C-alpha cells in the first residue's frame, strides 16, 4: 500500500529516514529513479541509511510495478526526483492519493514556493491536473511542519515566490 508519494531530488536522505519513515510507519521505500538505479554506488550509499526494518527498492522508473506495490499491505513511501517524474509515474500506473513536495532544487524557470521547493509554471500546471483527479498535493520538508496546499503554492508563485 502506498502511503505517500514524495517528490524529493535528494531521494533517500536525512529527512526521509529520520522523519517521514517513522511518521508513516513505512516498512518499504521505493525509489523510482533512473539515475540512482543506474549507480551501484548510489544504491549502496542510500541503502546504508535505512533501518533494517524497512525494505528498500531503487529501480528505474519504468521498471517499478506501482500497482503491485499498492496492492499488498506493506506501508510504502514512494520517492521520485521531480514533478516530471511524478507525471511519468502516474502515466505508468502510480496510484496517487497523497503527494508531498519535499525538496525540489532551484533551476532557471523555477521560483521558490517554500524554502526547499522551487517550481515552474509547467510543474504547477501538471500538479493542478493531478489534483483534478482527486490527488491531494502539499509541500513541506518534514511531517512536523505545516503542509502548504497547492492553491497557496500557486499564490506564492504568482507573487514571485
Amino acid at each position, binding site marked *: 500500500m502506498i502511503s505517500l508519494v514524495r517528490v524529493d*531530488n535528494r531521494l533517500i*536522505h*536525512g529527512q526521509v*529516514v529520520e522523519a517521514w519513515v517513522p511518521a508513516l510507519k513505512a516498512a518499504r521505500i521505493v525509489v523510482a529513479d533512473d539515475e540512482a538505479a543506474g549507480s551501484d*554506488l548510489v544504491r549502496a*550509499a*542510500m541503502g546504508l*541509511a535505512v533501518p533494517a526494518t524497512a525494505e528498500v527498492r531503487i529501480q528505474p522508473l519504468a521498471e517499478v510495478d506501482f500497482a503491485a506495490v499498492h496492492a499488498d499491505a506493506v506501508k510504502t513511501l514512494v520517492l521520485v526526483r521531480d514533478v516530471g517524474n511524478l507525471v511519468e509515474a502516474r502515466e505508468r500506473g502510480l496510484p496517487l492519493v497523497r503527494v508531498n513536495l519535499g525538496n525540489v*532544487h*532551484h533551476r532557471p524557470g523555477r521560483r521558490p514556493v517554500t524554502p526547499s521547493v522551487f517550481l515552474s509554471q509547467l510543474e504547477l500546471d501538471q500538479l493542478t491536473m493531478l489534483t483534478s483527479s482527486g490527488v491531494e498535493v502539499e509541500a513541506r520538508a518534514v511531517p512536523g511542519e505545516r503542509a502548504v496546499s497547492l492553491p497557496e503554492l500557486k499564490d506564492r508563485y504568482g507573487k514571485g515566490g
Partner: protein
Amino acid sequence: MVGLVVATHGHLAEELVSTAEGIVGKLPGVATCLVQPGASLDEIREKIRDAVRSVDTGDGVIVFSDLCGGTPCTLSLTLSRQLQLEVLTGVNLPMLLKAASLRAERLPLADLASALTQYGQRNITNASASLRDGVAAGNGH
C-alpha cells in the same frame, strides 16, 4: 598530512570547527561544507569535491558527516571512488579534537579513520551513570 572536511546539514559543520578551534587553536587543513535547502545534488557534490580538494595534500582526506544516510554522507560516499577519502558519520567534538592531535602521528588514512571512529564512539557515555558506578565501587573522587 591527512585533510579533514566536516560536511553537515545546517551550520553544524562551521560551528563544530569553530568550537574545536576555540579549544585547541586554529586547525590547519580543515574545510567545512554546509548542505542548505534548495541546492541541487550536483551543486552539493561539487561543494564537497571542492572542500576535499582544498585540504588534500596527497595523503587523503577524512570527511566527517553528521548523519548516516544524510545527503552529506551519501554524496561523499559517491565521491569515494574518484577521490582518496574515508567517510565517517556521527561527527562529534571529541572526534574532531582527536583528529587534530592524531594527524601528527602520520597514520595511514584508513587507520586514522578507524581510530577516530572508535574514539568518537567511546566518547558517547552516560557520564552520570559512570559517576554513580564509580561512587558505588568506592573509587569516586
